[in-house]
Every structure is written in C-alpha cells, then in structure tokens.
C-alpha cells in the first residue's frame, strides 16, 4: 500500500449512483446471498432424504413467516442473479456496452427480478 499522502480519487459517497453501479454491486451481493441460501436448500434436501418425520420438521421451520421471508428473498436473489448474469453473458459476447443500453438492461434486471419473484410466488400459492 502507498505510504505517501496522495490525492485520492472521489470515493463512493460523492458519486451520484449510476444504476449500472448498483446493478454490479447487487450481482455480487445476490451471489453471496444465494451461496448462503444454497445451504438452506441442502438442508431441505437432506431432510427429504432422511424421511417424513424430519421433513415435516424442516417444512415447519421453512414454512414459518421468517422462513417464507428468507425463501422469498432467495427467489428474488435467484431471479436477479439470473437476469443480470444474462447481461454479463451478452457483454462477454460483445453486446450491450453502449450507455443507454447498459442503463436500460440494468433497470430491466432490477425491476424484472422483483416482478418475476412476486409472480413465481403467486403461482406457487395458487398451484396446490
């Protein structure tokens, strides 16, 4: 690290947040969140493999209001990481770099993920 006092470039707090910056940070944050959520899904899988009694217990925990809140957050994170991941794949293929397109696709991923998560849960509740 530098041991001389150098002028620093403006840091996070003085920027007007461009939506592309938010979408990039969200991609990493949802990635970390999904990693933790995967532990929860593995627990559910283990419970299903263990048998009806333990499965019923895990279902009760995950079905509580807190469990549902976490699982809904997981669903949103999955849709966001999925949509924004498709943005990344498009960039890798050389498309979507112009500012208007990048801004629009960022908003699309943010708004789209919320819409899809809500829609998925409405369908899940209606589909018994």
């Amino acid at each position: 690290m530098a041991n001389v006092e150098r002028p620093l470039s403006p840091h996070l707090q003085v920027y007007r947040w461009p939506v592309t910056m938010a979408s990039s940070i969200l991609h990493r944050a949802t990635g970390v969140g999904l990693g933790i959520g995967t532990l929860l899904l593995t627990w559910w899988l283990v419970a299903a493999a263990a048998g009806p009694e333990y499965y019923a217990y895990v279902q009760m925990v995950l079905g509580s209001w807190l469990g549902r809140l976490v699982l809904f957050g997981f669903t949103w994170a999955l849709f966001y990481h999925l949509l924004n991941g498709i943005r990344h794949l498009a960039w890798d293929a050389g498309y979507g770099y112009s500012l208007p397109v990048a801004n629009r696709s960022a908003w699309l991923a943010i708004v789209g993920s919320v819409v899809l998560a809500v829609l998925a849960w409405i369908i899940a509740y209606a589909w018994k």
Partner: protein
Amino acid sequence: MSNPTKTMRTPLKKVRGLGAAKDGVQHWWIQRVTALALIPLALIMLVALLKLATGDHAAVAAAFRHPVFAIVALLAVLAVFWHFKLGAQVVIEDYVHSEGLKMASLLGVTFAVFVVGGIAALSVLKLFLGV
C-alpha cells in the same frame, strides 16, 4: 511492443497463453459454462421446488424417483456448487488481502463445496433409489 526484439516475453510464454494467474482463461470460462447451464437448470429446479413446497413428503419422494428429474437435480447440484466455488473464490481474492488468511479461506471454501455438495448429491441419489 513496437520493437519485437525488445520484448521480454518468450514465444513459449505467448503460445501457452497462461498469463500472470498461470491458469489462463480457465476460471473465467468455466464460470461462464456453469452460468449458461444454470439458466435452464435453476429455472426447472425453482419451478419444481415451488410446486413441492406446498406438498407432503410423499410428493417429494415421488418426484425424485423419476430418473429425468433426478438427473436434472444432480446436474443442478454440480453446476450450482461449481459456480459457487468460482464466485466465492473471486470475492475472497478481492477482499482478503493477508496471504495466510486468503489461502485459508480459499481452502475452506474448496473443502466446504465438496462436503456440502457431496451431501446434496448423496441426498438426491438416496431419494432416487428410494432407500
């Protein structure tokens, strides 16, 4: 690069194309391959889990007994944990700067991925075989 005789990079180094990380584009490429695989796999598993969430244990057991669903679930487990390993590695390399702690975290993530991923895969197999 204007004067090719002055370059310090040997032809062998160039042809290997491995760069400073010594593994070339391997990490980047597998992250993309698993990402592409996860688009259909994650969507199928999400729909299945949202359906199974409101059912009982018998419904879950019956779903995993089907070979196609069991294979999709196994592939999803493989792709998810592989993709997670690559992503977590980048996050650790970005934020953990002390060499010892970084190495320990990277090893921890690698071992955890194999242990937890193995448990998930074994659970799918157990459900598929119905034992």
